[in-house]
Structures are given as structure tokens and as C-alpha cells.
């Protein structure tokens, strides 16, 4: 039996959060939810998260600060996928500079999201 892949979703918009959870649970992933950066940091610090999926604009610690936390403080290589609305190209570039692996725009296409996740995880191996 293979170990489940734990994905942490950090998103403060309820509809987006539930849509992401629904898509990823149906695809067989194990899901952890955080509605702000503080909750996300707490979950990340436990060390059992395999992928971080984060919005840029979340309360307390932004998505960018979470990426910095993962790469610098936790020194973790886990794949990070950034969620963003269209038109925030500069911010997405900054996310890549901080160590994000990929991004997806909202509203997301479920097939596209799953493909990007698979690609990121295969590159990690």
C-alpha cells in the first residue's frame, strides 16, 4: 500500500478552498486545509506535508512569505504551487524567485491543476 500524498491548501476564499479540496480529494490526495498563513505555517512545521498549494493573498503571512518560510526556515524542497488571479504577473515572478515551482490562475481548470501537480511531483523524484 502506498503512502498518501499530503497536500496543504492555504486559501482564504471559502468557495475556492472547497473547490480545490473537492478536486484533490477525488483525485486521491490527502488534504490539509489552512484558511490563513498562520495555520499554514503551523501545519508545515509538522513536517508531513508533501506539497504546498497556496494563494498569494492570505491573512497573517502571505503566500510569498509562506514560500520563503518553506525554503529558508524549513529548508524544505517540497513542491510549491501558487494560486493567483490573472494580472498578477509581477507577484508570480517574485514567487518563482522565492522558490515556487509552478502557478495556476483562478478559477482553475481541475484537469490542468492535476497535471501540474503530477508534473511537479515527478520532477521532485
Amino acid at each position, binding site marked *: 500500500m502506498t503512502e498518501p500524498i499530503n497536500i496543504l491548501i492555504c486559501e*482564504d*476564499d*471559502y*468557495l*475556492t478552498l*472547497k*473547490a480545490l479540496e*473537492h*478536486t484533490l480529494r*477525488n483525485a486521491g490526495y490527502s488534504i490539509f486545509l489552512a484558511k490563513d498563513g498562520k495555520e499554514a505555517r503551523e501545519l508545515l512545521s509538522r513536517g508531513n506535508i508533501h506539497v504546498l498549494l497556496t494563494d498569494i*493573498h492570505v491573512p497573517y503571512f502571505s503566500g510569498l512569505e509562506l514560500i520563503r518560510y518553506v525554503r529558508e526556515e524549513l529548508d524544505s524542497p517540497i513542491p510549491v504551487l501558487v494560486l493567483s*488571479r490573472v494580472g498578477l504577473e509581477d507577484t508570480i515572478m517574485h514567487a518563482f524567485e522565492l522558490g515556487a515551482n509552478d502557478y495556476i490562475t*483562478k*478559477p*482553475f*481548470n*481541475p484537469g490542468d491543476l492535476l497535471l501540474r501537480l503530477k508534473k511537479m511531483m515527478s520532477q521532485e523524484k
Partner: protein
Amino acid sequence: MQVAGTDERFVLEMLKYFVQNTPVVLQRMKNYCREKNWNDLAAELHKFAPGLSFLGITSVEEKIRRVEDCVSEGVMHENLPRLMEEIDQMGTEVVNVLKEDFSL
């Protein structure tokens, strides 16, 4: 709603949340606009728009983008009250239609 596929229960859960939450959000946005609190208005709009997209309500989203443009460019917000009024009317109408069509 592409995300939901054929899961009716999930669709209803999302619609119910939208119907319950949207009047509160619209009121908050009107307050921010009246108070000329552009930062909080922009943040509220930023959160509101993706939900509309998920539900396929693109007509309101277009107006939201126009308001966001006004706010981010820092140009005078003389059109804002009218745009906000239109967003409020459209949002309220969508909520009423959903309530009736889905008995929410």
C-alpha cells in the same frame, strides 16, 4: 461548474454558501465604498471575484475588474459608486434567482 463534475450535493453546498454569504459581502463592499476605504474594498473584491467565476457568473466579474482597475490605478473614483451599485444589483439578482431555482 467544471470543478463539481456530476456531484450534485457539492454543487448545492457551494450555491448555498454563495447565497448566504453574498448579501453580507455586498453590504461590506458598499460600506467600504461609502467610507472611501479603497484598500479594503480592493481586498474584498479580490476574494469575491473567483467565487463568481467558479459559478460561471462572468457578467458581474467584468464589472468587478473595472472597479479593481480604478482602485489600483488610483484614478478618481467618480465611476465607483455607479459600478458598485451595478455590482450590488446584479449580485442580488443572482442570489434571488439561485434561491428560487434551487429552493435554497
